[in-house]
C-alpha cells in the first residue's frame, strides 16, 4: 500500500551569512514579530517563493522560445499545413 509518511522529514538546513538591504531586513523583522516566528523563517519563506517565481519565469521563457523555434520561418501555406490544413494545387485534381 502507498501510505504517506505520518511526519514529514525536517528540511536540511545550513547556516550562512548574508548582506541584505536594510529596508528588506526591517520589513522581514516586522513580519516575523507580527507572526511570532523567527527571522530565519520569514527570510527562508521569502527566498523560497522568490526562487519558485524565478523557476516559473524561466520555464515560461523556455516554452515561448520553443514556440518561436517551432513556428518561425514558415510561409503562410506552410503554417496552414502545420495547423492541419492541407491545400493542394487545383490543377493536380
Amino acid at each position, binding site marked *: 500500500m502507498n501510505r504517506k509518511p505520518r511526519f514529514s522529514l525536517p528540511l536540511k538546513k545550513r547556516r550562512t551569512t548574508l548582506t541584505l538591504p536594510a529596508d528588506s531586513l526591517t520589513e522581514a523583522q516586522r513580519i516575523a514579530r507580527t507572526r511570532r516566528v523567527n527571522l530565519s523563517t520569514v527570510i527562508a519563506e521569502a527566498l523560497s517563493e522568490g526562487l519558485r517565481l524565478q523557476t516559473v519565469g524561466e520555464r515560461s521563457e523556455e516554452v515561448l522560445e520553443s514556440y518561436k523555434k517551432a513556428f518561425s520561418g514558415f510561409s503562410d501555406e506552410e503554417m496552414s499545413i502545420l495547423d492541419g490544413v492541407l*491545400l493542394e494545387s487545383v490543377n493536380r485534381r
Partner: protein
Amino acid sequence: MVPPSSGPFLFDTSAESWLGRAEHPSISAWMREYLSHDEIHISAVTVMERVRGYSLLWRRAEKSRQERIEGARVAYLTKLGRVWPVDGAVAVVAGEIMALLPDPPTPPRQSHQLRESRQERLARWRFDAMIAATALVARVPLIHNNAGDFESIRTAIERSPERFPNLGPLDLIRCASLA
C-alpha cells in the same frame, strides 16, 4: 480580456500556433502570465496534426531545409505541455458531435491555385470534433481561432443536451479576445 489566471484552457491547433507566433506585446504578456499559472493544454489530436504537418513539410523540402524543419519539430515536441488523450470518454462525446453534425459547417479552405480536398476537409472537421469533445470532458474552456467550426459544435450541443449528460456547455474563447 480573459484573465490568464482563469485557466487552464485547452488550445486548439491553430490557436496554439497563433499564440506561439504572436509578437504583439499584449499577447506575449498574456502568454507569460498564463504560463506562470498553468501549462499549455492541448489534445493528442493537435500533436497528431502538427507532427503530420512537420513530416509533410520535411518530405517536400530540399535537403538544405530539412534540418531546419526537423529542428522546429523537435523544439515543438520538447516543450509540450499537458497533452489530453483521446480516451473512451472523449471518443463517446466526439462520436455524438459527429452524429449531430456529419458534414463540415464551412467549405474547404482555398487560396489562389490551392484548395483543400473534400476528404481533407472532412478529416479536419472530425479532428475539430475530437478537440471540442476533449474540452468538454476536461471541463476547460477551448481557445480557438476557428469560429465557424467550433461555434457550430457549441450550438449543436446546446440544442441536444440530452446527448451530453452532465457535460457542457462548450465554453469557447477566441484568440483575438485574449488580450
